[in-house]
């Protein structure tokens, strides 16, 4: 029994190390291509952001004098997190999902409170402080699951819902009326209008 436990623990922690390796949220394009000085010019002027707010020109080479080596250009590049200083605080970009503006796999960017049991809890928090969601999301994120009538990729109900719905409706009748309130909705199938 102890052996099984030790092997399981080793396996779980070992797997953890492997799975963490792929955790970096990648960018759509290299940072140099994502950022354009030209497009940000007006916004920077309006927000009174100067060159030195992002670039560290104060860096100097160790030895001084006319023969001193140049400072490596890479050191003058801003920190990668500098984008977030505006995009997660001062600027509300009209993205349905602001993070996906630059990042590919936004799942890896989910805040820690979105991880455990978030599907059940998110409604309460969004009702009380909907503006906290606006940091990353627009209303279109809610509509994707709550409003769309894409029955071809129906994710609201489970796969066998056509057969199980009568048992489930008698379990929680109020859940049906959240979306279906037309009296003809049930009848359309049960009289054979829909196949």
């Amino acid at each position: 029994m102890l052996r099984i436990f030790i092997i399981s623990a080793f396996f779980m922690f070992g797997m953890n190390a492997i799975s963490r390796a792929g955790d970096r949220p990648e960018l759509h394009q290299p940072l140099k291509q994502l950022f354009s000085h030209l497009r940000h010019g007006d916004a920077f002027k309006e927000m009174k952001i100067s060159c030195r707010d992002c670039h560290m020109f104060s860096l100097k080479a160790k030895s001084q004098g006319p023969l001193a080596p140049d400072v490596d250009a890479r050191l003058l590049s801003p920190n990668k997190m500098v984008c977030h200083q505006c995009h997660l605080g001062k600027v509300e970009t009209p993205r349905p999902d602001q993070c996906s503006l630059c990042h590919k796999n936004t799942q890896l960017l989910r805040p820690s409170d979105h991880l455990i049991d978030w599907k059940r809890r998110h409604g309460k928090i969004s009702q009380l402080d909907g503006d906290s969601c606006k940091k990353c999301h627009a209303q279109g994120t809610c509509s994707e699951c709550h409003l769309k009538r894409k029955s071809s990729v129906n994710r609201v109900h489970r796969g066998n819902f056509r057969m199980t719905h009568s048992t489930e409706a008698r379990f929680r009748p109020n859940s049906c009326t959240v979306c279906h309130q037309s009296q003809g909705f049930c009848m359309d199938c049960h009289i054979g209008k829909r196949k």
Partner: protein
Amino acid sequence: MCIRLIKILFICWLFAPLQQAHALTTLNTTLASGYHRDSLKQEHLSLFYNMKYSYTSHSGIETYLDFGINNDFVQEEWGAYPYLLYLTLPLDKGQESAAFRKSRVQIGRQIFLEGFAFETLDGVVLQSYLRPDSGIIVYAGSLHVPEETTKSSFKEQIYGSNLFFNKKMISLKVGPAYKTNANTETYLFNSNALILANDFWSHPMLSYKQEWNFKDKSVGQELAEVRAAPIENISMGLQYSSRRPDPNFSRKRRLIYNLFAVGYERSRALTLDWDMPTHQHMGARTERIEYESVAGKENGESHELNYSFDLGSASISPSVRYLSSFGGEMWDYHCRFSYGVNQVTHMSLEAEMSKLDKLNSITGYAYNARAGLDLEFLSRWKAQALLEIERNHLFKVDSRLVIYASHFYY
């Protein structure tokens, strides 16, 4: 007519991405088509078009549109669905640390989340921050359930306001609402409170929401929840709810509920979630529901156990559920596997088996399987294919295949 509409949609979809690009515009257009064979072995071709568009002008006015057209092949009807269409007029620039917290007026069709509602509102919502952590919301308009997005009836109207307060651990929202229908009027008082003590031991969360009905002088609906994580990564919750459809609804709109229940539906649930450090998650939920039907008191039970394991870009999540109600008993076994093959290709497989013993003496098994493939074939272009097969008491095999092509523009 159909062919003409398809042509128009195709042209819209083709030319939409060619608009002038700049950072204040976001556009996502999706065109999907598929094949479906129904229980009578009749074949159908579906078409679905969706467009999400947002544009913010330099003055800060935001236009948001989420619009779909399809021949929903379950409902066999063509329809244009303006899911969301609103203008946001900013009244200030927002707080320095959080631009998204700003006073504003939102006009048009939008999601409405005040009180117990989750509906779309055709109307106006004013949100004003009196202080960085508190303010007032005033709203007026007509409410629609998701099923009604094609219609624009102003028969059911709502007017109200809420005071809101969010500071550190405490969030509060209280205020009156007035609902009117063709012949009825309802005066409500909504209160909603949440205490989220993330810095304390066990990170407790307490939440209570209530709708007080002035006319009946009684609690219309209520929802209470206590949640805590006594051991790191293990979260436990207790939930109580007492719900019923809005009594302001006409009898027609309450019909589906009244087929099974009259009065309140009361439920008690216990949940347990374990987030393991190795990208594994285990969850359990048990729930008991009681309500009164025309025949007398009814109750139901549901017990669910689920597990998920992420390994790099692969994820597997099996679950099992037992449910019983006066409609019968069912066991449901489900498993989903998804795998990111590489940076541009993602696949998913899903299988479900249900064992049923229904009130109408139908017993047996139902099966459902789905397979999906996402392919980012060009920068900003994505193709998706979905194949679904099911087998149950109605038909031996029901199948559908849907192909999507999406363009993302920002």
